[in-house]
């Protein structure tokens, strides 16, 4: 049985909907005078971050604290890791200190999977982003944001994203956000289109459950949500595209392009944004842009994941359900 959340692909449709529904209830806690729930009282969670990511770390930390967990933050920089201690030793050390779950961010694809399956530790592992592989809680918070905006806060309860047309634009090749979103959105019944210069689409993408287009302007009028992915400027030096200017011209989202989207359609970004390159200030600051909402939703969604994985004696999501074969 799985006790971890490693990949968005591990979630069934019902798992995902349960997480989103639970996140809606968690969201209500944010409106209370005391923003705290007792679900993880007495449990210690370690945020094990081998990669700088203040946003994700703070989001997890807020979620953990709202659920009353004890939180240990471990940043690899300046620690024994930078002196050559291995992932294995670090994880075992933490477990020896009584950590009940590990939230891990790592630059190497597969590091959370390895931590969860190698027998190094017993604690459940939650992937907070690994290399260019997966970032499942990001995909969940994105789906949560889409469901709220496109289906409705209460109307969305129990529902998925069937038939919603979602467009992901940018550096798909190097994006764990893209991979997680494609997996989860497909599970939730959405129709996903990836838009990128061909250099930034992985070889082998043809097996993914989505469409690929190189033409943003053609896809925009048929999108209910457009998610802009971060494009690192350094990619330019590796000849993925000629210049920043050309990239923005072909794949950046400005006001004029946004006007081609249907009126109800939203603009999303996992942050941090590179303003001017992939998204103009006009778009980033518009009503239709959900960037700030996504941050708030990140806390609700992570609370839901933590509660459903760690709140009981066994997880309520991510495990394959036993067949209904018990004798009647």
């Amino acid at each position, binding site marked *: 049985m799985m006790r971890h959340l490693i990949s968005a692909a591990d979630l069934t449709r019902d798992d995902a909907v349960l997480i989103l529904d*639970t996140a809606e209830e968690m969201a*209500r806690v944010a409106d209370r005078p005391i923003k705290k*729930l007792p679900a993880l009282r007495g449990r210690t969670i370690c945020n094990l971050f081998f990669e700088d990511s203040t946003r994700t770390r703070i989001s997890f930390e807020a979620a953990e604290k709202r659920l009353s967990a004890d939180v240990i933050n471990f940043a690899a920089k300046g620690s024994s890791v930078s002196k050559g201690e291995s992932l294995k030793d670090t994880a075992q050390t933490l477990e020896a200190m009584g950590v009940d779950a590990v939230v891990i961010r790592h630059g190497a694809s597969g590091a959370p999977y390895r931590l969860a399956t190698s027998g190094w530790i017993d604690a459940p592992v939650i992937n907070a982003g690994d290399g260019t592989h997966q970032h499942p809680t990001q995909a969940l918070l994105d789906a949560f944001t889409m469901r709220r905006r496109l289906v409705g806060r209460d109307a969305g309860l129990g529902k998925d994203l069937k038939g919603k047309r979602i467009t992901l634009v940018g550096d798909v090749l190097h994006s764990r956000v893209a991979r997680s979103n494609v997996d989860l959105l497909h599970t939730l019944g959405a129709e996903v289109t990836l838009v990128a210069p061909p250099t930034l689409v992985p070889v082998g993408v043809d097996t993914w459950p989505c469409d690929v287009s190189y033409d943003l302007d053609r896809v925009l009028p048929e999108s209910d949500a457009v998610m802009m992915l971060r494009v690192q400027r350094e990619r330019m030096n590796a000849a993925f595209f000629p210049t920043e200017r050309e990239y923005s011209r072909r794949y950046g989202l400005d006001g004029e392009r946004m006007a081609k989207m249907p009126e109800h359609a939203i603009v999303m970004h996992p942050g941090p944004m590179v303003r001017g390159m992939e998204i103009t200030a006009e778009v980033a600051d518009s009503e239709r842009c959900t960037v700030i909402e996504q941050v708030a939703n990140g806390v609700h969604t992570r609370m839901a994941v933590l509660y459903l994985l760690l709140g*009981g004696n066994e997880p309520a999501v991510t495990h394959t359900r036993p067949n209904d074969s018990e004798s009647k």
Partner: protein
Amino acid sequence: MDSHDTNEPDVARPVLEGPDIARVLTRIAHEIVERAKGAEDVVLLGIPTRGVFLARRLAEKLEEITGRSIPVGSLDITMYRDDLRMHPPRALARTEIPGDGIDGRLVVLVDDVLFSGRTIRAALDGLNDIGRPRAVQLAVLVDRGHRELPIRADYVGKNLPTSLRETVKVQLAEEDGRDAVLLGAKPASA
């Protein structure tokens, strides 16, 4: 093993029917008005699932009696349960606190069956995280006894002496399509 179909105990018999439940709720509403001196600062909080429907019905009756609108909400106790760690996490139900909150108010918790008292203990903990009521009272449709904690109800629809081998099942139209309180035998464990 006996020959009963364990899925549906065939011995379940109604101890309260629809009209009984309506009458009982009316009585409780009157008691609340009487004890709360007009029920001016009452907030009704139902405990999901069926406590919420009962709280709404009570609120309607109170409104009939007092002519004022009575704030009603719900209080999910899932995360405050003391057996949280003994099962997989349960889906959360809605906690809905009426606009003016509960600070300084008389909160009446509403539930369908009072049994061990653990649910109410969890509810008291939950309230603690939401505000500070002037006082907390408890209204239940059925008190079946067997308390495991020093908790009692202020308003009881029906005291129903039971054995631990029996089950009490409340059905409400909003959820179950009809109103009834059923007393049955516990299914033989497999």
